[in-house]
């Protein structure tokens, strides 16, 4: 008795499996190592620092541009509206720490004025974002 089995034809797509594996690994790497956040109303270049604690993500609430423009999330605001925005934020994010992304070239006195406004709105702690200087 003879049993004839026909071989299964290899698919052309089988050659792509190693490529898919590598691409998937790369994708997982970028997903885990990077952080995706919504863009601010303008680009800020935060100051460099080497000694402060690591921050998990780059998401921010308040952004200060080098020319003094101010944005809460993605909305441009005026200094006079800062306190009302801060009060709303505090109500919605009880117990959270507000993150400020100030441009390295922004005036420090203006940043302190902003912090005073935040304190007047009842915010007691903020995190000023900085980049690790060793990244450069």
């Amino acid at each position, binding site marked *: *008795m*003879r*049993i*004839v089995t*026909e071989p*299964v034809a290899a*698919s052309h*797509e089988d050659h*792509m*499996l190693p*490529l*898919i594996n590598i*691409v*998937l690994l*790369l*994708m997982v790497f*970028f*997903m885990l*190592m*990077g*952080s*995706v*956040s919504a863009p601010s109303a303008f680009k800020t270049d935060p*100051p*460099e*620092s*080497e*000694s*402060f*604690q*690591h921050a998990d993500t*780059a998401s921010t609430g308040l952004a*200060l541009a080098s020319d003094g423009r101010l944005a809460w999330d993605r909305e441009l605001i005026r200094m006079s509206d800062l306190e009302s925005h801060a009060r709303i934020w505090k109500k919605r994010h009880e117990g959270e*720490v507000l*993150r400020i992304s100030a441009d*390295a*070239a*922004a*005036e*420090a*006195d203006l*940043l*302190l*004025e902003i*912090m*005073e406004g*935040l*304190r007047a709105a009842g*915010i*007691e*702690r*903020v*995190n*000023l*974002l*900085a*980049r*690790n200087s*060793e*990244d450069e």
Partner: protein
Amino acid sequence: MEISLQPARPTRIPLTSLVDVVFILLFFFMLASKQLDWRAIDVNLGPSASIHAVPAPTRNRTLLVLPSGELRSGSRTLRIEAFRSELSNDTGASGRVILVPARGTAVQVVVDVLDQLKATGIEVRLGRLGEVS
């Protein structure tokens, strides 16, 4: 007798469309994600905090941070390294420094000074020009 076994046709997932989607996702994460190592400078704004109610200058070292990165204490202007060595020599220091950025001083300059002073372990507060006489 000859028995011819037709191989069971395996169900295949079409890989080409999968690769397309994976490539698109890969490009998205490559372009959209930020790989920077972020640092957070914790600033306490509370009642006992850093940017208000600056105590009397006689009990604290009030330093004006100049745009050049130098520090001015009274009539003296000194670099941060000189101030650090002065701090280490002065064992009777109260252990609190109030940094007041001068007009035009960039955030980066203040962060650099904070970086340097953090290593000394000294308590640092921030004040504004109008608050310190």
